[in-house]
């Protein structure tokens, strides 16, 4: 057991503030050092309501009844928050109210800090969510949804063979001269409008825009999800792009004229680059589409005649001929034009 002196010493110096009040007179009997530091007005034989002038008679009654009272007191410049509770004790026939105070200032400060931090983190989380959505939108412009999903899940994209697909390659006639002759900012702004319209047309026909390089627009059907009518979809898409340009040229000062080539075959799709990356496709179909596009006259679509069976119902293949394509040798090609709806029905 601890000695009486030790217990007294402990009570004197402990961080808990202890004060004794004679309930009959309402005067302080005694208090420890901590209590004295917190309540500078405290003195033996002084009424407790003067010693703790922030309390009133109701507070003392509450404490007597076993309830906790929270009060503020100032020590030098610091405002302390004290949690005061009490219990009754008997000392040689006198009823004493033992006041026991806990300094909860640090707790309150920590709570305030955590509240502040939580608000900050919530705000940051919302900002990050917004940024994430923006980044996702950007990445979805760079790569197909399924490729993006793969990148997000695994942190990398495995090159994948897509077969068969159709590649649509479009290039504008005289773009360089147009850009030089007119205000380049106007030209680029118009190009942006046109490519935006092409994106919408591509989307309608299940065509995935892969990239634009200058005035060249490249899109693929049958990627990333295989389809049996990829050639027909690409042809419909190409026809609608030319129709859009024709319509636009009626109402705009600058006349835009495009050449289109469509080729079927296999491509490998992958993300290229690390810091500045782009989703791209590679393969003979890409090169072939570029050669066919170069063969086209302005506002013409050139295809290989091997796709005749798939296209004939909706399109007429004109000017069928053999052409020697660099890297591919001799190839039967033709120009595609839409059949009139009446002929189609017949």
């Amino acid at each position, binding site marked *: 057991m601890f000695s009486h002196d030790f217990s007294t010493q402990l009570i004197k110096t402990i961080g808990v503030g202890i004060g004794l009040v004679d309930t009959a007179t309402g005067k302080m009997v005694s208090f420890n050092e901590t209590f004295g530091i917190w309540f500078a007005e405290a003195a033996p034989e002084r009424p407790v309501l003067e010693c703790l002038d922030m309390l009133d008679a109701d507070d003392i009654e509450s404490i007597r009844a076993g309830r906790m009272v929270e009060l503020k007191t100032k020590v030098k410049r610091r405002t302390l928050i004290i949690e005061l509770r009490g219990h009754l004790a008997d000392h040689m026939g006198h009823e004493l109210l033992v006041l026991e105070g806990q300094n909860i200032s640090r707790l309150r400060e920590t709570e305030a*800090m955590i509240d502040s931090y939580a608000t900050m983190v919530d705000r940051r989380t919302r900002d990050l969510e917004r940024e994430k959505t923006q980044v996702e939108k950007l990445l979805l412009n760079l790569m197909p949804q399924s490729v993006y999903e793969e990148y997000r899940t695994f942190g990398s*994209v495995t090159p994948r063979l897509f077969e068969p697909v159709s590649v649509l390659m479009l290039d504008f006639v005289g773009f360089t001269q147009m850009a030089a002759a007119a205000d380049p900012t106007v030209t680029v702004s118009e190009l942006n409008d046109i490519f935006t319209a092409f994106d919408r047309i591509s989307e309608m026909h299940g065509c995935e825009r892969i990239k634009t390089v200058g005035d060249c627009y490249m899109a693929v059907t049958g990627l990333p999800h295989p389809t049996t009518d990829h050639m027909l979809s690409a042809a419909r898409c190409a026809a609608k792009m030319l129709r859009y340009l024709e319509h636009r040229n009626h109402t705009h000062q600058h006349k835009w004229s495009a050449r289109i080539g469509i080729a079927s075959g296999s491509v490998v799709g992958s993300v290229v680059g690390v810091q500045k*990356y782009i989703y791209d496709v590679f393969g003979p179909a890409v090169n072939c589409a570029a050669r066919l596009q170069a063969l086209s006259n302005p506002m013409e679509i050139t295809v290989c005649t091997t796709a005749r069976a798939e296209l004939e119902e909706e399109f007429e293949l004109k000017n069928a001929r053999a052409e020697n394509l660099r890297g591919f040798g001799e190839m039967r090609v033709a120009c595609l034009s839409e059949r009139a709806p009446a002929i189609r029905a017949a």
Partner: protein
Amino acid sequence: MSICTQSTHKLPLFDRYGGLSALRHVIMLFYDRVLDSDVVGDFFEDVDMARLIDHQTKFFTMILGGPARFADERLAAAHAHLNVTHAQFDEIIMLLRDTLETANFTPADRETTVAAIEARRAIIVTGDGPCSRMTSAHS
């Protein structure tokens, strides 16, 4: 062929010293020191504690590279009416150095943190007192 997702950047002080826990330690130590200081203590005497802690939390989090933004405009607004002098600002810097040392920040990290606050001296100091860096009278 893959896209690099690992950041190679050095972690901010906020993370290196233990995030929220370190922040709490620094703020509480600093709060005690400024209240005890006879040079700047009066500024903090009757300030609403929750509001002061809120400002300090956001400010220190930002200074230590944590997830907070504390605009210079807000810092200026919070100090505009106080007429803080250079001498008082110097005291704050001294107390902060002391706080960071107690919180076991390395000398280099202490100086990095202090430099970030020094960079805002012109925003905080609006009083007419002499600048210790410019006058030999102040010590």
